[in-house]
């Protein structure tokens, strides 16, 4: 029978481990962004599994290091060498971007945590003669990424549905990605046009990762006739 001392020892071992409280203090300011990096990585995996090598690029040169935006920003920003990835599938150019703002159909700008967009549109927006936010029509896939230690906040789901509603009809795939879940949000996302709930999307649930990756592969294949 376990005693209170056994429990105390187990808690101490967990909290004092190198990946315990010390690690939490280190990464707590970037926990959300680390999750975005993970989802971005899953997009790279999807592209790779389509037989294409994704190429990491930077806004101002070779991305060494590859920098993720700390806040929503503009695709043409040269404040830092922000990273993105480009790939070509069956003659169609695409880019994977993180934290980039798009112009909604209403004219309001919206940030997509991670997205896949048309490559030519991205390049046009970076052209010094035509610097601009990309139009919603250039967006192919968009995901909201949320790291949560507890249940997801319902308001996030409502806000993302509103965002997607303003992104026009070219958007083929959208989803809310989180390591967490929310039973009511799952129901809220049930209607056909609503984002896909990629809940419990974490390396601890590899089947959920496979669903996410396969959705991207399927949609890109369909779109490009690959």
């Amino acid at each position, binding site marked *: 029978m376990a005693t209170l001392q056994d429990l105390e020892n187990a808690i101490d071992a967990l909290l004092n481990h190198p990946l315990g*409280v010390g690690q939490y203090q280190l990464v707590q300011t970037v926990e959300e962004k680390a999750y975005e990096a993970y989802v971005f990585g899953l997009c790279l995996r999807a592209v790779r599994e389509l037989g294409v090598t994704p190429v990491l690029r930077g806004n101002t040169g070779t991305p060494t290091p590859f*920098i993720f935006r*700390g806040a929503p920003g503009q695709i043409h920003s040269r404040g830092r060498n922000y990273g993105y990835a480009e790939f070509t599938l069956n003659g169609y150019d695409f880019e994977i971007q993180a934290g980039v703002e798009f112009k909604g159909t209403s004219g309001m700008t919206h940030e997509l945590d991670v997205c896949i967009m048309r490559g030519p549109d991205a390049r046009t927006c970076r052209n010094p003669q035509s610097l601009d936010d990309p139009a919603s029509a250039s967006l192919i896939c968009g995901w909201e990424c949320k790291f949560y230690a507890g249940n997801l906040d319902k308001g996030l789901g409502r806000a993302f549905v509103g965002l997607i509603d303003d992104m026009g009809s070219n958007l083929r795939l959208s989803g809310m990605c989180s390591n967490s879940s929310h039973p009511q949000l799952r129901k809220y996302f049930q209607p056909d046009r609503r984002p896909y709930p990629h809940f419990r999307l974490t390396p601890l649930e590899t089947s959920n990762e496979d669903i996410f990756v396969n959705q991207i592969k399927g949609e890109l294949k369909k779109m490009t006739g690959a």
Partner: protein
Amino acid sequence: MSRNSYTSQQALDLLMSKLRAQNDLLARNIQAAIDVGKDVSEEEPSNDRRKKPRVYRRTVRFSHEEALQVAVSALQAYFVEQPLFIDEASDNFAKAALGRPTHGLNKWVPSGDEREPVVLEQQGNEKQLEIELHTETKVTREGDEIFALKRLSRQSIEEQRQQINHLRALTTFSEE
């Protein structure tokens, strides 16, 4: 009969006091996850025997044992999942190639029609991933500008995973 010599309330109190002593912000985050409570379906029998009972949703607080499981899951998110996100991102970035522009000093003007010519390098090699801390629009600049995502050893992650599983077992009271 319980498998532990302590109650779920004693276990929760001990865990939360240890967390508060080590890191107040972490303790508050976990307390917040617990305090959300849960939805349950309540049934109200109808006076009319021919009618079905009325079912409605009610938000209630977690039991001490449920709260313990919420806390352990939250700790798993911070101590196991976070390092795994970085690890898996690093894996996927390593398998991508770096694109180095080949036009040298000639200025390349991006256009919709043509992709910038690049040579592919470093495919299969570890890439350095960084997160911007001081964003473009921040006025004050202090502390670090960026945060480097550093891969942690798989062995350490596995150790924490085992410790979480151990803690979960010690905070489970119901007999299976």
